[in-house]
C-alpha cells in the first residue's frame, strides 16, 4: 500500500474512533449524535425498511438524471448548434439557473402529487440547467475550422453534430453532467425530506421526528452512498470518452 493511502486510511480510522469515543464517554447526548456502531446497528435493525427506501430513492435519482440528460442535452444541443436559437435562449438558461429552485417545490407537489413523480420532476429541473448550459457552451466553443473540415469532406449537418461537434464538446458536456447529477441527487433527497411517503429523505425526516438518531445518520450514509455511486458511474464515462483531452493537455 502506498504511503498516501496508508496515511489516509489511518486518518479515517482515527476519526471514526474519536467519533465513537465522543459518544461512549457521553460528551454529546444521544439525541444529537449517533456513534458509528449505533449507526451500523440501526442499519442492521431496520435493514428491510432502509432497503425499500434506498431502492425508491435510487430509482428516482436514476430516472431524474436520465430525463435531465435527455432534455438538457437536446436543448443544449439545439442552442449550441443554431446561433440564432442560442442567442435567444442562452441568456434565459443562464439566468434561470441562478433562481433558487426550491421555492418552486410547493408548486411541484401541486402539479405532480406527493409521490415519486414530484421528486423526479424536481430532480430533473435541478439537473436540467447545468447540463443544458454546459452542452450549449461546449458546442459553441468548438473551433470553427472543424465545421469547415466536416463540410469539406461531405458530412451532413447531422453528421457534423454527431461525429465531430459532440465528441469535441464532450469534456464540457461531462462536466455539466457532474454538476447536474449531484444537483439531481440533492434535489430528490431534499424533496423527499420536505414532503413524501417514502425514500431516504423521508426516513431521515421521520426518524428525526421519532428521535431515532441512529436511523437519521444511517439515512445520511445511504444518501452519501447514492452520490458515490453516481460519481463512480460518471468517472467511468469521463474516462472512456474524454481521455484524449487529458492526454492532449499533458503534452502541451
Amino acid at each position: 500500500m502506498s504511503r498516501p493511502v496508508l496515511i489516509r486510511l489511518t486518518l479515517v480510522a482515527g476519526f471514526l474512533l474519536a467519533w465513537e469515543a465522543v459518544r461512549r464517554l457521553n460528551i454529546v447526548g444521544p439525541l444529537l449524535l449517533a456513534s458509528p456502531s449505533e449507526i451500523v446497528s440501526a442499519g442492521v435493525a431496520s435493514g428491510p425498511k432502509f432497503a425499500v427506501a434506498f431502492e425508491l430513492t435510487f430509482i428516482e435519482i436514476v430516472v431524474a438524471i436520465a430525463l435531465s440528460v435527455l432534455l438538457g442535452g437536446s436543448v443544449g444541443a439545439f442552442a449550441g448548434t443554431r446561433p440564432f436559437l442560442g442567442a435567444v435562449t442562452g441568456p434565459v438558461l443562464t439566468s434561470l439557473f441562478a433562481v433558487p429552485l426550491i421555492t418552486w417545490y410547493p408548486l411541484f407537489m401541486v402539479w405532480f402529487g406527493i409521490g415519486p413523480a414530484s421528486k423526479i420532476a424536481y430532480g430533473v429541473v435541478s439537473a436540467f440547467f447545468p447540463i443544458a448550459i454546459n452542452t450549449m457552451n461546449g458546442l459553441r466553443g468548438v473551433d470553427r475550422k472543424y465545421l469547415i473540415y466536416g463540410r469539406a469532406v461531405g458530412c451532413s449537418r447531422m453528421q457534423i453534430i454527431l461525429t465531430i461537434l459532440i465528441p469535441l464538446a464532450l469534456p464540457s458536456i461531462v462536466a455539466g453532467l457532474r454538476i447536474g447529477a449531484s444537483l439531481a441527487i440533492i434535489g430528490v433527497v431534499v424533496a423527499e425530506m420536505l414532503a413524501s411517503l417514502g425514500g431516504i429523505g423521508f426516513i431521515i425526516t421521520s426518524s428525526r421526528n421519532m428521535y431515532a438518531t441512529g436511523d437519521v445518520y444511517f439515512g445520511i450514509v445511504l444518501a452519501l452512498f447514492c452520490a458515490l455511486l453516481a460519481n463512480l458511474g460518471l468517472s467511468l464515462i469521463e474516462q472512456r470518452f474524454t481521455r484524449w483531452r487529458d492526454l492532449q493537455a499533458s503534452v502541451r
Partner: protein
Amino acid sequence: MPKPIVIETRHLRKVYAVNRQPTVALDDVSFEIPEGSFVSLVGPSGCGKSTLLQILAGLVSSTTGEVLVDGEPVTEPMPGKITIVFQDSTLLPWKTVTENILFPLEIQGVPAAERAARATEMLALVGLTDFRDRHPHELSGGMRQRVSIARGLAQHPRIMLMDEPFGALDEQTRLKMGHELLRIWEATGKTIFLITHSLTEALFLSDVVLVMSHRPGRIVGVINAGLPRPRTYDMVGSPEFGAARNEMWHLISADETGEGLAEL
C-alpha cells in the same frame, strides 16, 4: 498535347458587408490550373487568400464569377474531388492516425476493404506507418501535417488545396516539409494549389506562382521561374531564384495602398 485543366476560375469577385459597408475581398480573379501541376498563390495576410480557397472548395459562394472543376461549376463542397489541408491540422483528437484517415472515406461511402487499403498506402507514402495507432497529440506538428496530407490524398481528390499548411511550423521543419511535399507530389502526380505568404516557399515548390495584391485581392502577376526539377536547397541561392523573388517583391510593393508590404 496540353494537359487538361483541373480547376479554373472566371472573374471571381467577392464582396463582404463589413459594418454594413460593402468591402471587396476579391476582384476579377481568373486563373487556370492544369492537371498535375503545382501552383501557389502568395499575397500579404488579409488579401483574401483564404476566402479564395474557400470559394474554390465550394464552402463559400462568390458574389460574381465562377469556379469550374473539370469543366463543372462548383456550387457546393465536392467531397472526394476537392480536399483541403488546413494550417492547423483539423485531425480529430480522439481518433488515431488511421481512424482520422478513414473518417472522410467512411463519410464518402468508400467500401471498407478499399478504405483500409488506401489508409495503408497513404501512411506508407507519408512515412508514418509506425505511427498509425497513435493519437494526434502524440505527434509533432510536422507529423500532424503529414497525416493531414495523407488524409486528403486518401480521398483520391482531383485537386488538393493547401491553406498555409506549414505556417504553424518552425523554419527547419517547414523546409523539410516542403521537400517532403514535393516528394509526395511527384509520387502521386496530384494537382496541388497552395496558399502561402512565404515567397521563398512558393517559388521553391511551384511550377507557377500567382501573386495577389492587398485588398481587394487581385492577381497582379504570374511568375514562372522555370526552375528545373528536382528542386534542391541550393537553387534558393541561384540568380534565377533571386530574380524571380525580386519580381514578386516588386509586384507586391507596387500595390497602390502599400499596406501589403507592411504585413508581409
